[in-house]
Protein backbone atom coordinates (compact mmCIF):
# COMPACT_ATOMS: atom_id res chain seq x y z
CA UNK A 1 0.00 0.00 0.00
CA UNK A 2 1.26 3.46 -0.66
CA UNK A 3 0.52 6.80 -2.13
CA UNK A 4 1.65 8.69 -5.16
CA UNK A 5 2.14 12.32 -4.44
CA UNK A 6 2.15 15.14 -6.94
CA UNK A 7 5.75 15.60 -7.77
CA UNK A 8 7.65 18.67 -8.68
CA UNK A 9 11.32 18.38 -9.50
CA UNK A 10 12.46 19.86 -6.26
CA UNK A 11 10.34 17.53 -4.21
CA UNK A 12 11.31 14.44 -6.09
CA UNK A 13 12.97 12.79 -3.15
CA UNK A 14 10.26 13.64 -0.68
CA UNK A 15 6.67 12.61 -0.21
CA UNK A 16 5.47 9.06 -0.23
CA UNK A 17 7.73 6.57 -1.85
CA UNK A 18 6.46 4.05 -4.34
CA UNK A 19 3.58 1.90 -3.24
CA UNK A 20 4.45 -1.65 -2.43
CA UNK A 21 2.86 -3.62 -5.19
CA UNK A 22 1.56 -7.11 -5.44
CA UNK A 23 1.09 -7.50 -1.73
CA UNK A 24 -2.15 -9.16 -0.78
CA UNK A 25 -3.18 -9.06 2.84
CA UNK A 26 -5.77 -11.17 4.57
CA UNK A 27 -8.23 -8.26 4.68
CA UNK A 28 -8.08 -7.95 0.90
CA UNK A 29 -9.43 -11.48 0.66
CA UNK A 30 -12.15 -11.10 3.27
CA UNK A 31 -15.59 -12.06 2.09
CA UNK A 32 -17.87 -9.08 1.84
CA UNK A 33 -20.41 -8.53 4.59
CA UNK A 34 -23.17 -6.05 5.07
CA UNK A 35 -21.46 -3.51 7.31
CA UNK A 36 -24.82 -2.09 8.41
CA UNK A 37 -25.60 -5.33 10.25
CA UNK A 38 -22.78 -4.48 12.64
CA UNK A 39 -23.82 -0.91 13.41
CA UNK A 40 -26.57 -0.17 15.90
CA UNK A 41 -27.53 3.48 15.64
CA UNK A 42 -30.22 6.09 16.03
CA UNK A 43 -32.50 3.94 18.19
CA UNK A 44 -35.06 5.79 20.27
CA UNK A 45 -37.33 4.09 22.82
CA UNK A 46 -36.45 0.88 21.07
CA UNK A 47 -34.96 -2.55 21.68
CA UNK A 48 -32.34 -4.38 19.64
CA UNK A 49 -31.14 -7.98 19.93
CA UNK A 50 -28.11 -9.59 18.32
CA UNK A 51 -28.04 -13.28 19.04
CA UNK A 52 -25.18 -15.77 18.82
CA UNK A 53 -23.78 -16.15 15.30
CA UNK A 54 -24.91 -12.76 14.03
CA UNK A 55 -21.74 -10.92 15.13
CA UNK A 56 -19.38 -13.89 15.31
CA UNK A 57 -16.26 -12.05 16.45
CA UNK A 58 -16.56 -8.96 14.25
CA UNK A 59 -16.34 -5.30 15.24
CA UNK A 60 -19.54 -3.62 16.49
CA UNK A 61 -20.39 0.08 16.59
CA UNK A 62 -23.21 1.42 18.77
CA UNK A 63 -23.95 5.12 18.35
CA UNK A 64 -26.46 7.84 18.89
CA UNK A 65 -29.14 5.83 20.74
CA UNK A 66 -31.61 7.11 23.30
CA UNK A 67 -33.78 5.39 25.91
CA UNK A 68 -33.15 2.03 24.31
CA UNK A 69 -32.10 -1.48 25.28
CA UNK A 70 -29.39 -3.26 23.32
CA UNK A 71 -28.45 -6.91 23.82
CA UNK A 72 -25.52 -8.46 21.99
CA UNK A 73 -25.34 -12.10 23.00
CA UNK A 74 -22.33 -13.02 20.91
CA UNK A 75 -18.57 -12.64 20.99
CA UNK A 76 -17.22 -9.43 19.52
CA UNK A 77 -13.79 -8.31 18.26
CA UNK A 78 -13.97 -4.74 19.51
CA UNK A 79 -16.76 -2.29 20.31
CA UNK A 80 -17.25 1.46 20.49
CA UNK A 81 -20.31 2.97 22.17
CA UNK A 82 -20.69 6.64 21.31
CA UNK A 83 -23.20 9.40 22.03
CA UNK A 84 -25.77 7.23 23.80
CA UNK A 85 -28.16 8.52 26.45
CA UNK A 86 -30.23 6.55 28.97
CA UNK A 87 -29.58 3.17 27.35
CA UNK A 88 -29.27 -0.30 28.81
CA UNK A 89 -26.67 -2.38 27.10
CA UNK A 90 -25.64 -6.02 27.60
CA UNK A 91 -22.67 -7.32 25.64
CA UNK A 92 -21.07 -10.75 25.41
CA UNK A 93 -17.29 -11.17 25.56
CA UNK A 94 -15.25 -8.56 23.62
CA UNK A 95 -11.80 -9.83 22.65
CA UNK A 96 -10.10 -6.43 22.38
CA UNK A 97 -11.17 -3.05 23.64
CA UNK A 98 -14.55 -1.69 24.65
CA UNK A 99 -14.42 2.09 24.23
CA UNK A 100 -17.25 4.33 25.50
CA UNK A 101 -17.35 8.00 24.50
CA UNK A 102 -19.76 10.87 25.05
CA UNK A 103 -22.42 8.76 26.80
CA UNK A 104 -24.71 9.68 29.66
CA UNK A 105 -26.97 7.88 32.12
CA UNK A 106 -26.40 4.40 30.67
CA UNK A 107 -26.13 0.99 32.32
CA UNK A 108 -23.73 -1.40 30.62
CA UNK A 109 -22.72 -5.02 31.21
CA UNK A 110 -19.45 -5.62 29.40
CA UNK A 111 -16.73 -8.28 29.40
CA UNK A 112 -13.62 -7.24 27.48
CA UNK A 113 -9.86 -7.37 27.09
CA UNK A 114 -9.52 -3.60 27.59
CA UNK A 115 -12.00 -1.10 28.97
CA UNK A 116 -11.70 2.61 28.14
CA UNK A 117 -14.12 5.44 28.78
CA UNK A 118 -13.85 9.13 27.85
CA UNK A 119 -16.20 12.13 28.16
CA UNK A 120 -18.99 10.14 29.86
CA UNK A 121 -21.22 11.04 32.78
CA UNK A 122 -23.32 9.14 35.25
CA UNK A 123 -22.77 5.60 34.05
CA UNK A 124 -23.18 2.23 35.74
CA UNK A 125 -20.76 -0.40 34.42
CA UNK A 126 -20.89 -4.07 35.38
CA UNK A 127 -17.49 -5.08 34.16
CA UNK A 128 -15.24 -8.03 33.52
CA UNK A 129 -11.89 -6.82 32.21
CA UNK A 130 -8.65 -8.72 31.62
CA UNK A 131 -6.51 -5.58 32.07
CA UNK A 132 -6.72 -2.41 34.12
CA UNK A 133 -9.82 -0.38 33.19
CA UNK A 134 -9.18 3.30 32.47
CA UNK A 135 -11.35 6.41 32.53
CA UNK A 136 -10.64 9.89 31.15
CA UNK A 137 -12.54 13.17 31.49
CA UNK A 138 -15.55 11.38 32.95
CA UNK A 139 -17.55 11.71 36.15
CA UNK A 140 -19.99 9.67 38.25
CA UNK A 141 -18.87 6.36 36.77
CA UNK A 142 -19.84 3.49 39.05
CA UNK A 143 -18.46 -0.01 38.66
CA UNK A 144 -19.70 -3.43 39.68
CA UNK A 145 -18.70 -7.01 38.89
CA UNK A 146 -20.02 -8.48 35.60
CA UNK A 147 -22.78 -11.01 36.16
CA UNK A 148 -24.18 -12.72 33.10
CA UNK A 149 -25.21 -16.06 31.73
CA UNK A 150 -26.76 -17.09 28.43
CA UNK A 151 -26.58 -20.51 26.76
CA UNK A 152 -23.45 -20.06 24.57
CA UNK A 153 -21.55 -17.64 26.78
CA UNK A 154 -18.90 -20.15 27.83
CA UNK A 155 -17.93 -20.80 24.21
CA UNK A 156 -18.02 -17.08 23.48
CA UNK A 157 -15.49 -16.40 26.25
CA UNK A 158 -13.20 -19.01 24.68
CA UNK A 159 -13.73 -17.53 21.20
CA UNK A 160 -12.81 -14.10 22.59
CA UNK A 161 -9.69 -15.53 24.30
CA UNK A 162 -10.90 -14.24 27.65
CA UNK A 163 -10.55 -16.19 30.88
CA UNK A 164 -13.55 -15.98 33.19
CA UNK A 165 -11.06 -15.98 36.07
CA UNK A 166 -9.10 -12.90 34.98
CA UNK A 167 -11.24 -9.97 35.99
CA UNK A 168 -9.74 -6.74 37.32
CA UNK A 169 -13.01 -4.79 37.24
CA UNK A 170 -12.37 -2.68 40.32
CA UNK A 171 -8.77 -1.55 39.69
CA UNK A 172 -9.64 1.64 37.86
CA UNK A 173 -7.04 4.10 36.60
CA UNK A 174 -8.27 7.68 36.17
CA UNK A 175 -6.24 9.78 33.72
CA UNK A 176 -7.91 12.98 34.86
CA UNK A 177 -8.41 12.85 38.62
CA UNK A 178 -10.00 15.91 40.20
CA UNK A 179 -8.67 17.01 43.55
CA UNK A 180 -11.11 16.56 46.38
CA UNK A 181 -13.60 14.40 44.49
CA UNK A 182 -13.77 11.00 42.84
CA UNK A 183 -14.83 10.60 39.24
CA UNK A 184 -15.64 6.96 39.85
CA UNK A 185 -16.76 4.60 42.58
CA UNK A 186 -17.62 1.02 43.38
CA UNK A 187 -21.30 0.10 43.61
CA UNK A 188 -22.51 -1.28 46.94
CA UNK A 189 -22.41 -5.09 47.00
CA UNK A 190 -26.18 -5.39 47.06
CA UNK A 191 -26.54 -3.36 43.86
CA UNK A 192 -26.54 -5.92 41.06
CA UNK A 193 -27.49 -5.97 37.37
CA UNK A 194 -30.90 -7.24 38.49
CA UNK A 195 -31.59 -3.77 39.89
CA UNK A 196 -31.39 -2.30 36.40
CA UNK A 197 -32.66 -4.90 33.96
CA UNK A 198 -36.04 -6.57 33.78
CA UNK A 199 -35.18 -10.18 34.49
CA UNK A 200 -38.56 -11.50 33.44
CA UNK A 201 -38.06 -10.44 29.82
CA UNK A 202 -34.52 -11.70 29.73
CA UNK A 203 -35.18 -15.17 31.15
CA UNK A 204 -37.30 -15.95 28.08
CA UNK A 205 -34.10 -16.21 26.05
CA UNK A 206 -32.24 -18.14 28.73
CA UNK A 207 -30.40 -15.08 29.96
CA UNK A 208 -29.68 -14.75 33.66
CA UNK A 209 -28.15 -12.00 35.77
CA UNK A 210 -27.89 -13.94 39.01
CA UNK A 211 -24.59 -14.45 40.79
CA UNK A 212 -25.04 -18.21 40.92
CA UNK A 213 -25.60 -18.52 37.16
CA UNK A 214 -22.98 -15.99 36.05
CA UNK A 215 -20.13 -17.30 33.95
CA UNK A 216 -17.76 -14.82 35.60
CA UNK A 217 -17.33 -15.49 39.33
CA UNK A 218 -18.40 -12.67 41.59
CA UNK A 219 -15.33 -11.01 43.10
CA UNK A 220 -15.36 -8.29 45.70
CA UNK A 221 -13.49 -5.02 45.40
CA UNK A 222 -12.40 -5.16 49.03
CA UNK A 223 -8.64 -5.12 49.56
CA UNK A 224 -6.76 -7.63 51.69
CA UNK A 225 -6.99 -6.58 55.31
CA UNK A 226 -4.69 -7.62 58.15
CA UNK A 227 -7.40 -8.58 60.60
CA UNK A 228 -9.39 -10.92 58.38
CA UNK A 229 -8.37 -14.49 57.65
CA UNK A 230 -7.41 -15.22 54.04
CA UNK A 231 -7.11 -18.45 52.14
CA UNK A 232 -5.03 -18.70 48.95
CA UNK A 233 -5.77 -21.71 46.77
CA UNK A 234 -4.21 -22.91 43.53
CA UNK A 235 -5.88 -25.40 41.17
CA UNK A 236 -3.38 -27.10 38.88
CA UNK A 237 -4.19 -27.76 35.25
CA UNK A 238 -6.20 -30.93 34.76
CA UNK A 239 -7.55 -30.93 31.18
CA UNK A 240 -10.15 -28.30 32.01
CA UNK A 241 -11.53 -30.12 35.06
CA UNK A 242 -9.74 -27.61 37.27
CA UNK A 243 -12.02 -24.86 35.95
CA UNK A 244 -15.16 -26.73 36.99
CA UNK A 245 -13.58 -27.67 40.32
CA UNK A 246 -12.66 -24.04 41.05
CA UNK A 247 -16.23 -23.12 40.24
CA UNK A 248 -17.61 -25.73 42.62
CA UNK A 249 -15.50 -24.30 45.44
CA UNK A 250 -16.51 -20.72 44.62
CA UNK A 251 -20.22 -21.59 44.51
CA UNK A 252 -20.16 -23.63 47.72
CA UNK A 253 -18.39 -20.88 49.63
CA UNK A 254 -20.81 -18.31 48.20
CA UNK A 255 -23.85 -20.34 49.25
CA UNK A 256 -22.70 -21.71 52.58
CA UNK A 257 -20.48 -18.92 53.88
CA UNK A 258 -22.34 -15.64 53.43
CA UNK A 259 -19.76 -13.93 55.64
CA UNK A 260 -16.91 -14.86 53.27
CA UNK A 261 -15.83 -13.36 49.95
CA UNK A 262 -13.89 -14.32 46.86
CA UNK A 263 -11.42 -11.42 46.72
CA UNK A 264 -10.02 -12.22 43.28
CA UNK A 265 -9.32 -15.05 40.87
CA UNK A 266 -6.55 -15.42 38.27
CA UNK A 267 -5.77 -17.93 35.56
CA UNK A 268 -2.18 -17.86 34.41
CA UNK A 269 0.63 -20.01 33.01
CA UNK A 270 3.62 -20.33 35.31
CA UNK A 271 7.15 -21.04 34.16
CA UNK A 272 9.12 -23.55 36.23
CA UNK A 273 11.12 -20.67 37.66
CA UNK A 274 7.97 -18.78 38.69
CA UNK A 275 6.42 -21.93 40.07
CA UNK A 276 9.50 -22.58 42.20
CA UNK A 277 9.44 -18.99 43.40
CA UNK A 278 5.81 -19.16 44.52
CA UNK A 279 5.78 -22.63 46.08
CA UNK A 280 9.41 -22.65 47.29
CA UNK A 281 9.70 -26.18 46.00
CA UNK A 282 10.99 -27.39 42.64
CA UNK A 283 8.59 -30.31 42.43
CA UNK A 284 5.61 -28.05 41.66
CA UNK A 285 7.08 -27.31 38.25
CA UNK A 286 5.91 -30.79 37.23
CA UNK A 287 2.34 -29.69 37.91
CA UNK A 288 2.49 -26.22 36.38
CA UNK A 289 4.13 -27.25 33.10
CA UNK A 290 0.94 -28.89 31.76
CA UNK A 291 -1.12 -25.72 31.53
CA UNK A 292 -2.39 -22.59 33.31
CA UNK A 293 -3.20 -22.67 37.02
CA UNK A 294 -6.16 -21.00 38.69
CA UNK A 295 -5.40 -18.97 41.80
CA UNK A 296 -8.20 -17.93 44.17
CA UNK A 297 -8.08 -15.70 47.22
CA UNK A 298 -10.94 -15.97 49.72
CA UNK A 299 -11.40 -13.95 52.88
CA UNK A 300 -13.55 -14.34 56.00
CA UNK A 301 -13.56 -16.00 59.40
CA UNK A 302 -12.40 -19.65 59.40
CA UNK A 303 -12.27 -19.58 55.59
CA UNK A 304 -9.34 -21.99 55.38
CA UNK A 305 -11.29 -24.60 57.32
CA UNK A 306 -14.32 -24.23 55.02
CA UNK A 307 -12.21 -24.44 51.85
CA UNK A 308 -10.43 -27.55 53.07
CA UNK A 309 -13.77 -29.11 53.89
CA UNK A 310 -15.19 -28.51 50.38
CA UNK A 311 -11.99 -29.76 48.78
CA UNK A 312 -11.99 -32.90 50.94
CA UNK A 313 -15.64 -33.65 50.23
CA UNK A 314 -16.03 -32.75 46.56
CA UNK A 315 -12.72 -32.04 44.86
CA UNK A 316 -10.58 -35.14 45.30
CA UNK A 317 -10.25 -35.62 41.53
CA UNK A 318 -8.10 -32.54 40.93
CA UNK A 319 -4.78 -31.35 42.37
CA UNK A 320 -5.26 -28.42 44.70
CA UNK A 321 -2.82 -26.43 46.79
CA UNK A 322 -4.00 -24.65 49.93
CA UNK A 323 -1.52 -22.10 51.23
CA UNK A 324 -0.58 -21.95 54.88
CA UNK A 325 1.17 -18.60 54.49
CA UNK A 326 -1.17 -16.71 52.18
CA UNK A 327 0.17 -13.19 52.45
CA UNK A 328 3.66 -13.90 51.19
CA UNK A 329 2.53 -16.28 48.45
CA UNK A 330 -0.28 -14.00 47.34
CA UNK A 331 2.18 -11.16 46.85
CA UNK A 332 4.43 -13.35 44.74
CA UNK A 333 1.55 -14.77 42.73
CA UNK A 334 0.04 -11.35 42.07
CA UNK A 335 3.34 -9.77 41.11
CA UNK A 336 3.78 -12.49 38.49
CA UNK A 337 0.23 -12.33 37.11
CA UNK A 338 0.18 -8.54 37.13
CA UNK A 339 3.42 -8.44 35.16
CA UNK A 340 1.59 -10.23 32.38
CA UNK A 341 -1.15 -7.64 32.12
CA UNK A 342 0.68 -4.49 33.20
CA UNK A 343 3.37 -4.70 30.50
Amino acid sequence: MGCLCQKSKKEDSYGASKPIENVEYSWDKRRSMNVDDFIIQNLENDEKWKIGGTINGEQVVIQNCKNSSIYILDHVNTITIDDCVSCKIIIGPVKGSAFLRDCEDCVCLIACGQFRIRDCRNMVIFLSCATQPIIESSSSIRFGCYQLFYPSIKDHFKDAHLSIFNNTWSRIHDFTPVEGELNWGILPENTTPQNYFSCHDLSRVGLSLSVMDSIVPYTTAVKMCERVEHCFIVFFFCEGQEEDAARVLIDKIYLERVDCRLVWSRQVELSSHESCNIFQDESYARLTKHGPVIGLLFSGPCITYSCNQVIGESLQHVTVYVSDSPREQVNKFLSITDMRIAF
Partner: protein
Amino acid sequence: MAAFSLFGLLAILRKLKSSPDKELRILLLGLDNAGKTTLLKKLASEDVTHITPTQGFNIKSVQAEGFKLNVWDIGGQRKIRPYWRNYFDNTDVLIYVIDSADRKRMDETGYELSELLIDDKLVGVPLLVFANKQDLLHAASASDVAQSLCLHQIKDRPWQIQACSATAGEGIKDGMEWISRNVCRKK
Protein backbone atom coordinates in the same frame (compact mmCIF):
# COMPACT_ATOMS: atom_id res chain seq x y z
CA MET B 1 2.23 -14.77 8.30
CA ALA B 2 5.86 -14.92 9.33
CA ALA B 3 6.75 -13.47 12.68
CA PHE B 4 8.85 -10.38 12.38
CA SER B 5 11.15 -9.18 15.11
CA LEU B 6 13.43 -6.27 15.75
CA PHE B 7 16.20 -8.69 14.91
CA GLY B 8 14.58 -9.05 11.53
CA LEU B 9 14.80 -5.32 11.06
CA LEU B 10 18.43 -5.36 12.14
CA ALA B 11 19.14 -7.97 9.53
CA ILE B 12 17.72 -5.63 6.92
CA LEU B 13 19.74 -2.71 8.24
CA ARG B 14 22.91 -4.75 8.24
CA LYS B 15 22.56 -5.55 4.58
CA LEU B 16 22.72 -1.90 3.63
CA LYS B 17 26.10 -0.41 2.86
CA SER B 18 25.54 2.92 4.51
CA SER B 19 24.68 1.36 7.82
CA PRO B 20 23.98 3.83 10.58
CA ASP B 21 26.66 3.75 13.18
CA LYS B 22 24.60 5.30 15.92
CA GLU B 23 21.46 4.86 17.88
CA LEU B 24 18.27 4.80 15.86
CA ARG B 25 15.44 6.37 17.76
CA ILE B 26 11.92 5.52 16.67
CA LEU B 27 9.00 7.42 18.17
CA LEU B 28 5.63 5.68 18.19
CA LEU B 29 2.68 8.06 18.55
CA GLY B 30 -1.06 8.09 17.91
CA LEU B 31 -4.36 8.41 19.78
CA ASP B 32 -5.26 6.17 22.68
CA ASN B 33 -6.54 2.77 21.53
CA ALA B 34 -4.71 3.06 18.19
CA GLY B 35 -2.64 -0.06 18.85
CA LYS B 36 0.79 1.42 19.56
CA THR B 37 1.74 -0.98 22.35
CA THR B 38 0.47 -3.97 20.40
CA LEU B 39 2.66 -2.86 17.50
CA LEU B 40 5.65 -2.38 19.80
CA LYS B 41 5.23 -5.81 21.36
CA LYS B 42 4.74 -7.38 17.96
CA LEU B 43 8.00 -5.80 16.80
CA ALA B 44 9.72 -7.47 19.70
CA SER B 45 7.94 -10.79 18.99
CA GLU B 46 6.17 -10.71 22.32
CA ASP B 47 2.72 -12.03 23.21
CA VAL B 48 -0.05 -9.53 22.46
CA THR B 49 -3.01 -11.31 24.05
CA HIS B 50 -3.56 -8.97 26.99
CA ILE B 51 -2.15 -5.48 26.89
CA THR B 52 -3.20 -2.89 29.41
CA PRO B 53 -3.80 0.72 28.28
CA THR B 54 -0.47 2.58 28.54
CA GLN B 55 -0.31 5.02 31.42
CA GLY B 56 3.14 6.45 30.74
CA PHE B 57 5.38 5.07 28.06
CA ASN B 58 7.06 1.82 27.01
CA ILE B 59 10.49 1.40 25.49
CA LYS B 60 11.92 -1.55 23.63
CA SER B 61 15.59 -1.53 22.91
CA VAL B 62 17.70 -3.96 20.93
CA GLN B 63 21.45 -3.83 20.52
CA ALA B 64 23.52 -5.71 17.98
CA GLU B 65 26.70 -5.11 15.99
CA GLY B 66 26.89 -1.39 16.50
CA PHE B 67 23.17 -0.86 16.04
CA LYS B 68 20.94 0.26 18.79
CA LEU B 69 17.29 0.45 18.00
CA ASN B 70 15.14 2.29 20.52
CA VAL B 71 11.39 2.28 20.02
CA TRP B 72 9.45 4.65 22.27
CA ASP B 73 5.74 4.05 22.70
CA ILE B 74 4.00 6.96 24.44
CA GLY B 75 0.46 6.79 25.85
CA GLY B 76 -2.14 8.53 23.66
CA GLN B 77 -4.87 9.80 26.00
CA ARG B 78 -5.89 13.39 25.33
CA LYS B 79 -4.71 14.34 28.80
CA ILE B 80 -1.15 13.14 28.21
CA ARG B 81 -0.67 14.26 24.60
CA PRO B 82 0.86 17.59 25.69
CA TYR B 83 3.74 15.50 27.11
CA TRP B 84 4.54 13.87 23.75
CA ARG B 85 6.85 16.79 23.05
CA ASN B 86 9.16 15.73 25.88
CA TYR B 87 10.14 12.74 23.76
CA PHE B 88 10.78 14.51 20.43
CA ASP B 89 14.54 15.16 20.76
CA ASN B 90 16.80 13.21 18.40
CA THR B 91 13.97 11.32 16.78
CA ASP B 92 15.11 9.52 13.62
CA VAL B 93 11.72 8.19 12.54
CA LEU B 94 8.18 9.01 13.54
CA ILE B 95 5.68 6.16 13.37
CA TYR B 96 2.12 7.43 13.65
CA VAL B 97 -0.47 4.75 14.36
CA ILE B 98 -4.12 5.15 13.41
CA ASP B 99 -7.13 3.09 14.38
CA SER B 100 -8.60 2.92 10.88
CA ALA B 101 -11.86 1.56 12.28
CA ASP B 102 -12.49 4.54 14.58
CA ARG B 103 -14.40 6.77 12.16
CA LYS B 104 -15.54 9.09 14.94
CA ARG B 105 -12.01 10.18 15.72
CA MET B 106 -10.47 10.46 12.25
CA ASP B 107 -10.48 14.28 12.52
CA GLU B 108 -8.98 14.14 16.00
CA THR B 109 -6.11 11.91 14.91
CA GLY B 110 -5.56 14.08 11.83
CA TYR B 111 -5.35 17.17 14.01
CA GLU B 112 -2.83 15.59 16.38
CA LEU B 113 -0.68 14.49 13.43
CA SER B 114 -0.75 17.97 11.90
CA GLU B 115 0.44 19.39 15.23
CA LEU B 116 3.37 16.96 15.18
CA LEU B 117 4.33 17.89 11.63
CA ILE B 118 4.66 21.60 12.39
CA ASP B 119 6.82 21.02 15.46
CA ASP B 120 10.37 22.41 15.25
CA LYS B 121 11.86 19.37 16.89
CA LEU B 122 10.45 17.01 14.24
CA VAL B 123 11.42 18.99 11.14
CA GLY B 124 12.28 16.67 8.25
CA VAL B 125 11.83 13.52 10.35
CA PRO B 126 10.61 10.69 8.09
CA LEU B 127 7.02 9.70 8.80
CA LEU B 128 5.50 6.25 8.58
CA VAL B 129 1.75 6.16 9.11
CA PHE B 130 0.34 2.78 10.02
CA ALA B 131 -3.32 2.49 9.04
CA ASN B 132 -3.84 -0.10 11.75
CA LYS B 133 -6.71 -2.50 12.52
CA GLN B 134 -7.34 -3.38 8.87
CA ASP B 135 -8.68 -6.72 10.13
CA LEU B 136 -11.71 -4.93 11.58
CA LEU B 137 -14.97 -4.77 9.68
CA HIS B 138 -15.39 -1.00 9.84
CA ALA B 139 -11.78 -0.15 8.94
CA ALA B 140 -11.17 2.57 6.38
CA SER B 141 -8.68 1.59 3.68
CA ALA B 142 -5.19 3.05 3.88
CA SER B 143 -5.86 5.30 0.89
CA ASP B 144 -9.03 6.63 2.54
CA VAL B 145 -7.08 7.30 5.72
CA ALA B 146 -4.40 9.12 3.70
CA GLN B 147 -7.07 11.25 2.12
CA SER B 148 -8.79 12.09 5.43
CA LEU B 149 -5.46 13.14 6.87
CA CYS B 150 -4.39 15.09 3.76
CA LEU B 151 -1.11 13.23 3.80
CA HIS B 152 -0.54 14.17 0.17
CA GLN B 153 0.11 17.73 1.24
CA ILE B 154 3.22 16.68 3.15
CA LYS B 155 6.19 17.95 1.15
CA ASP B 156 8.87 18.50 3.74
CA ARG B 157 9.82 14.93 4.61
CA PRO B 158 9.71 11.39 3.26
CA TRP B 159 6.49 9.70 4.27
CA GLN B 160 4.58 6.52 3.67
CA ILE B 161 1.26 5.07 4.66
CA GLN B 162 1.09 1.36 5.30
CA ALA B 163 -1.99 -0.75 5.95
CA CYS B 164 -1.50 -3.15 8.84
CA SER B 165 -3.05 -5.28 11.51
CA ALA B 166 -0.81 -5.19 14.57
CA THR B 167 -2.70 -8.01 16.30
CA ALA B 168 -2.29 -10.28 13.28
CA GLY B 169 1.24 -9.01 12.59
CA GLU B 170 0.38 -8.24 8.97
CA GLY B 171 1.81 -5.24 7.13
CA ILE B 172 4.30 -4.36 9.86
CA LYS B 173 7.26 -5.83 8.04
CA ASP B 174 6.48 -3.80 4.92
CA GLY B 175 6.38 -0.60 6.96
CA MET B 176 9.63 -1.36 8.73
CA GLU B 177 11.31 -2.09 5.41
CA TRP B 178 10.29 1.35 4.21
CA ILE B 179 11.93 2.78 7.32
CA SER B 180 15.16 0.91 6.76
CA ARG B 181 15.33 2.15 3.18
CA ASN B 182 14.55 5.77 3.94
CA VAL B 183 16.41 6.32 7.13
CA CYS B 184 19.57 4.64 6.03
CA ARG B 185 19.62 6.59 2.80
CA LYS B 186 19.70 9.78 4.81
CA LYS B 187 22.54 8.75 7.09
